[in-house]
C-alpha cells in the first residue's frame, strides 16, 4: 500500500518530466557541455576535432573587463526597466478599477495593442519616431539633428522606454485581475476608516496581491535581464562603440557573429546562474515574510 502510494505520483509526473527533459534539460546540458569546449565554426563544420578546454572559456570571460562592464550595465538597465514596468503597470491597473467602462475599454485595447506588436516592429517604430532628422518627436520639439543614440544614457533611456511600453500591459492585466479579486468589503472598510487611495494601495492591495506580484516581478526580471531585440534593433547591435551592449547581445556578438560558440555558451550559463540566484533569493524573501508560493 505504502509502496504503491510511493510510486503513483512518479507515474503521474512522467509526461511532465518527458516534456521538460526534452525541452529544457537536454538543451541545458548541451549549453553546459559547449561552454567547456573549444567550439568554433571549424568544429561545427567538422573541419577540426572538438577539444575539451575545462574552464578556459570562463576564465577568459571573467578576465575580460568588457564582460564586467556589460554585466554591470545589464543589471542596472534590467533593474530600472523592472521598476518602471511595475510602477506603470500597477498605476494603470489601479486606474482601470476607478474609471468608467468606455475609458477602461479604450485603455485596455491600447495596452493590448502595444502588447501584441512584435518586438522588432515595435522597436523599429520607436526608431522612426525618434529619428535624428525626420523623427516625429524631434520635429515636434524642433530639435532636428539631435541624435538620441549618441549619448549612452539617452540611448539606454529610449530603449528602456520601448521595453516598458511593450511589457507593462502584462503587469497591468495581471494586477487588475488580482485587484478585482479583492473583496470589495475590505476596501470599503478601509475607506470608511479614512484610508486614501495611496494608503489603501500599499496597506491593502499590495499585501493581498503578494502572490500575483511575485509572479509579475520574477517574469519581469527574467524578461528584462535577457533583453535582446530592442537593444539589437534600436542601437544597431550595441550602440556607438558598443556603449549599449547588454549581456544577451554581447553573447550573440561573441557566439554567433564571431563563431565562438563555446564562449557564447559560457555567457549563457553565467546568465542562467544569475537569474536562478535572483529568483531563489526573491522566493526565499517571500517565504520569510510568511507567504507560500
Amino acid at each position, binding site marked *: 500500500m505504502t509502496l504503491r502510494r510511493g510510486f503513483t505520483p512518479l507515474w503521474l509526473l512522467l509526461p511532465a518530466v518527458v516534456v521538460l527533459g526534452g525541452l529544457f534539460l537536454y538543451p541545458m546540458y548541451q549549453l553546459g557541455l559547449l561552454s567547456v569546449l573549444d567550439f568554433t*565554426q*571549424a568544429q*561545427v*563544420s*567538422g*573541419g577540426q*576535432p572538438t577539444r575539451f578546454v575545462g574552464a578556459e572559456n570562463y576564465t577568459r570571460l571573467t578576465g575580460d573587463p568588457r564582460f564586467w562592464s556589460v554585466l554591470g550595465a545589464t543589471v542596472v538597465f534590467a533593474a530600472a526597466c523592472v521598476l518602471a514596468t511595475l510602477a506603470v503597470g500597477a498605476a494603470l491597473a489601479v486606474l482601470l478599477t476607478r474609471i468608467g467602462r468606455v475609458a477602461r475599454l479604450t485603455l485596455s485595447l491600447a495596452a493590448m495593442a502595444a502588447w501584441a506588436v512584435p518586438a522588432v516592429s515595435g522597436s523599429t517604430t520607436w526608431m522612426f519616431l525618434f529619428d*535624428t532628422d525626420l523623427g516625429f518627436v524631434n520635429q515636434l520639439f524642433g530639435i532636428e*539633428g*539631435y*541624435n538620441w*543614440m*549618441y549619448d549612452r544614457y539617452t540611448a539606454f533611456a529610449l530603449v528602456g522606454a520601448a521595453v516598458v511600453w511593450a511589457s507593462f500591459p502584462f503587469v497591468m492585466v495581471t494586477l487588475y485581475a488580482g485587484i478585482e479579486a479583492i473583496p470589495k468589503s475590505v476596501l470599503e472598510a478601509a475607506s470608511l476608516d479614512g484610508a486614501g487611495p495611496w494608503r489603501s494601495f500599499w496597506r491593502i492591495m499590495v499585501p493581498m496581491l503578494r502572490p500575483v506580484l511575485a509572479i509579475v516581478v520574477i517574469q519581469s526580471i527574467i524578461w528584462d535581464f535577457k533583453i535582446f531585440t530592442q537593444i539589437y534593433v534600436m542601437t*544597431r*547591435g*550595441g550602440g*556607438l*562603440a*558598443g*556603449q549599449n551592449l547588454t549581456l544577451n547581445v554581447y553573447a550573440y*556578438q*561573441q557566439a*554567433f*557573429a*564571431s*563563431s*565562438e560558440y563555446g564562449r557564447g555558451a559560457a555567457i549563457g550559463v553565467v546568465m542562467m546562474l544569475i537569474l536562478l540566484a535572483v529568483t531563489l533569493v526573491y522566493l526565499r524573501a517571500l517565504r520569510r515574510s510568511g507567504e507560500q508560493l
Partner: protein
Amino acid sequence: MKKRLIVLALALGLSACGAPSTSSSSGAAADGGPRTGALKVWLFDEPNRAPKEAVVKEAVAEFTAAHPDTTVDLQYIAVDTRSERFKGAFNDPASAPDVVEYGNTDLPEYAAAGGLADLGATVSGWAEGADLSSSARASATYEGTLLGVPWYVGVRALYYRTDLFTELGLKPPATLAELSTTAKTIRSRKPDLYGIAVGGKYTYGAMPFVWANGGELTAINSAQSRTGLKAYTDLIAADNCPPQNCADLTGGKTVELFASGKAAMGILGNFNRAAVDAGVAKGRYAVVPLPGVTAGSIAPAFAGGNNLGIMKNAQRPALAADFLTLLASKKYQAKMYDAMGNLPTLKAASAEIAAKDTFVKPFLDTIDAGTKFVPLDPGWGKIDSSAVLPTMIEKVATGKATVDQATDEAAKQIDEALTK
C-alpha cells in the same frame, strides 16, 4: 583528418602542375547531381539593386532556355547579416544554396569552415577561364585552392562635386592634408553640407589613411597607423562631419549622403556609380584617386570585390558550374559594368571598358598604384564581425578614448584573433 590530408594533397597537386584533372575534391554529389530542378542562388543585396537585378534576370533567362526543366531560385541576401546566413548554410546542408556571391574578405573564414567547393577543375574546363587576371585569381585562392571565380573587383576613390568646387574656387585635393583643409573650407562656407562624408563604421574609408601613412592593419598601434587614424577621425568633427551625425555612419550611408547632395566629397567605390547617379549629384561630380601623403601619390586602396562560388553542400554542382560560368562570362561582366559600374575581372572585358569609358580611369590608376588587402586569415572574419575597427574609430571620434588607447585595445584584439 585523413580525409583532409587527401583533399589538401589533391589541391596542392592541382595547383602545382596546373593540369586539368577529372577528379574533383568537392564533397558534394560526385556525379554533379541532378541536371533538372531548381538551382538555388544567393546574390548580395545592394543599395539600388534594380540594374543588377535586370542583368541577372537576363542571365537566368538565357540559362533556363539552355537547360530544359530547370528554374533558378534567386535570393538577394543582406550584406550585414551574410555571415549568419552563410554559417547557417554551412551547418545545414539541406537549406544550402548552390551558387553564392561572397565578398573576397570572407574567403579565409569560409575556406577554413570548409564550406566552399574547389573550382580548379571548373575553371580550367571553362573557355574564358584563362582570361582571368592573375591578381584576381590570387584573391580567390586560399592555401593553394581556387575557391571562387572573381566576379568583379572594386576600389574606392574620391568623388567630389564639380559644381560646388567651381563655385567656391576649390581644386581637388592633392594630398590627404589638403583633403582635410578643403573639407573644412566647404563646411565653413556652406554650413548645411558636410565637407567630406565619413563614418565611424566605414572601415574601408579609414584604412587608406592608415596605409598612406605607412601603417598596417596588423600593427594598428604603430606610430604610422596612429597618424593615419588620427587624420581620419579628425574629420569626424563639428568642422566637417559632426560626431552626432557621422560617428555611427556606415559606408553605405556615406554613399547616400553624397548622392543626395548632403556632402561635397565622399570616398566611394566604382561600384557606387549607379547609386550616385540615382541622386541629385548626378552629372555634377567627378572622380580622382584618393591622394596620399605627398603630392602626386595615391593612397593605397582596399582591393575589394566579390567572388562567385559553389557551396560544398550544393545539390546540383554541375548545373551550378554552368550558371556560375555564364554569370562570370565576358558578356555578363560587361553588362554588370554598364549596370552597376563593377570592374570586370576578365582582361578582355576590362580592356574593352577602359577604351570606351573614361569614368574607370581614376579607379584603374588607383589599382595600378598598388592596392592592399586585409590579412588572409580565418581570424579576420572574427575581427570584422565583432566590429573591432569600427569600435576603435567610434571611440576616438566620440572622445571616449584617445587614439593611443583605442589603437592599443584594437591591436590586442586583432593579435588575439589572428594568432588563435
